[in-house]
């Protein structure tokens, strides 16, 4: 065994630095591609002299972002609050529902099928109804739309994660005569975390979509979705695009936040994927 030890120890010690380096190396190609795409876009607009109302150049969008920074930031603030609200509501409801369903193992697959059918409904179509229920200027009318959209992937993924137990772990816990609660705490919950985070990643994207589209149907004038709809109606397309860029940045930031939480919650998962 000493031979194995001698070989594996230095290799393991170097692993930390290597993962940081490989994480950076992984980030480089998409960044390069993204930058190249922006350059190509800029060139296309200039060479073909595409009019701004069809497609403004990235430089023009950036310029608008700079001049209208106050307007866009205050709109983004309202939208961010709604997005986070929808994310929180949908995730918490989804996780709670997943726990309840996982207690009924036999009924679970039927319930999941029903939920999958329900999730096919275009939830954003409910936005005008929620405006009626909560009042268009009430943030809750937007949060409810996003919350429902987030609920489905979080609930379905987490339920599957909680129900999927490695047969070996099940047998081991049985041989130790562990209680159902111990199986839940020591095996099901940690085992379900990867699935939960997959659900949250889908949810993060959906939450932004849900809020922006719900805002199209009216509400506080000061919100990214409203800004996009209004400026487009007024043919102020540079402002429209600037607001779209801000909404995209919001979506990316939320996704990054989920990735960060995933790393904190599952340090083993990260280490595993690298090896």
């Amino acid at each position, binding site marked *: *065994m000493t031979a*194995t*030890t001698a070989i*594996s*120890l230095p290799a*393991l010690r170097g*692993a930390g630095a290597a993962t940081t380096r490989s994480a950076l190396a992984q980030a480089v190609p998409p960044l390069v591609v993204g930058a190249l795409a922006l350059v190509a876009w800029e060139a296309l607009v200039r060479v073909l002299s595409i009019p701004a109302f069809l497609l403004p150049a990235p430089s023009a969008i950036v310029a608008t972002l700079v001049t209208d920074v106050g307007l866009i930031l205050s709109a983004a603030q309202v939208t961010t609050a709604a997005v986070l609200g929808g994310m929180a509501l949908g995730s918490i409801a989804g996780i709670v529902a997943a726990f309840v369903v996982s207690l009924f193992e036999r009924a679970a697959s039927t319930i999941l099928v029903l939920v999958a059918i329900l999730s096919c409904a275009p939830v954003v179509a409910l936005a005008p109804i929620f405006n009626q229920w909560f009042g268009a200027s009430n943030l809750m009318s937007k949060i409810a739309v996003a919350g429902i959209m987030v609920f489905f992937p979080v609930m379905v993924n987490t339920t599957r994660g909680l129900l999927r137990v*490695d047969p*070996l*772990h099940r*047998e*081991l*816990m*049985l*041989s*130790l*005569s*562990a209680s159902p609660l*111990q199986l839940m705490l*020591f*095996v099901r919950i*940690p*085992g379900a*975390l990867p699935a939960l985070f997959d659900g949250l990643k889908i949810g993060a994207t959906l939450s932004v979509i849900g809020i922006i589209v719900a805002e199209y149907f009216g509400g506080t004038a000061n919100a990214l979705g409203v800004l996009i709809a209004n400026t487009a109606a007024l043919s102020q397309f540079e402002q429209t695009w600037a607001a779209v860029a801000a909404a995209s940045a919001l979506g990316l930031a939320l996704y990054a936040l989920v990735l960060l939480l995933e790393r904190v919650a*599952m340090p*083993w*998962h990260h*280490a*595993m994927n690298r*090896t």
Partner: protein
Amino acid sequence: MTTSPTDTGVATTTAPAISLRGVSKVFSTSSGPVHALDDITLDIEPGSFVSLIGPSGCGKSTLLRVIGDLIDPSEGVVEVHGRSAAAARKARDYGMVFQQAGLMDWRTVRRNIELPLQVQGVGRDERRAKARQMLKLVKLEQFEHHRPRQLSGGMQQRVAIARALSFQPRVLLMDEPLGALDEMTREHMQRELLGIYQATGTTVVFVTHSVSEATFLSTDVIVMSPRPGRIAEHLKIDLPAYRNDETRISEQYFAEEAKVRASLHSVLDESRRAA
């Protein structure tokens, strides 16, 4: 449990650690009932190392699981230290090791070993102390804080053995624990396992495919025949209690191995003739 030699020096009597009386197991499958075990009667002495060997389909893994109360027998009685197998499992008499280590990725090596103690409600400090003791026993002290995936297959299997031994179970049930390892690691692990067995005095029931492994490790080898699973022969291995690499090349060892091999071959010939 053990009566000391009588003053007449006549054969000593010991109450068996594990006693099976007329144990049968029938699995109902889509293609009809399968007789996995048929009328198994067997006594296992406390502190013995018993290997179950036989062609695939002879029910050796099923027998191990019936002893461990992971599968209910269709007929017959299993007693472990005078109690039912179910009572023995509830009393935490069993440590189990499977072909796959089945470690939990979300726990460090030490916390994997602590799992059975945690299930039993042992306090944190005591858990930690015992786990460290076990790490020493399997010679993995330096790997306390590693993740299972950072370890080689052989090292993972030693962690699984340490986990099974952490609460000093009276019976160690092992289902081809070295089957997934390469030849070199396997022989090394056999020596380690013998050392652990001799140090702890646990009763071991060991499922294996390997004649040499069964001979080298065991006090008793149970040769089983397939369809339905029956005990073909119960062989006593006549080798000194202390065994090392010298043992593997001794005349006595070769004679014992030949005995096991001959028994297994007659079972194979018979099942081939029946087929």
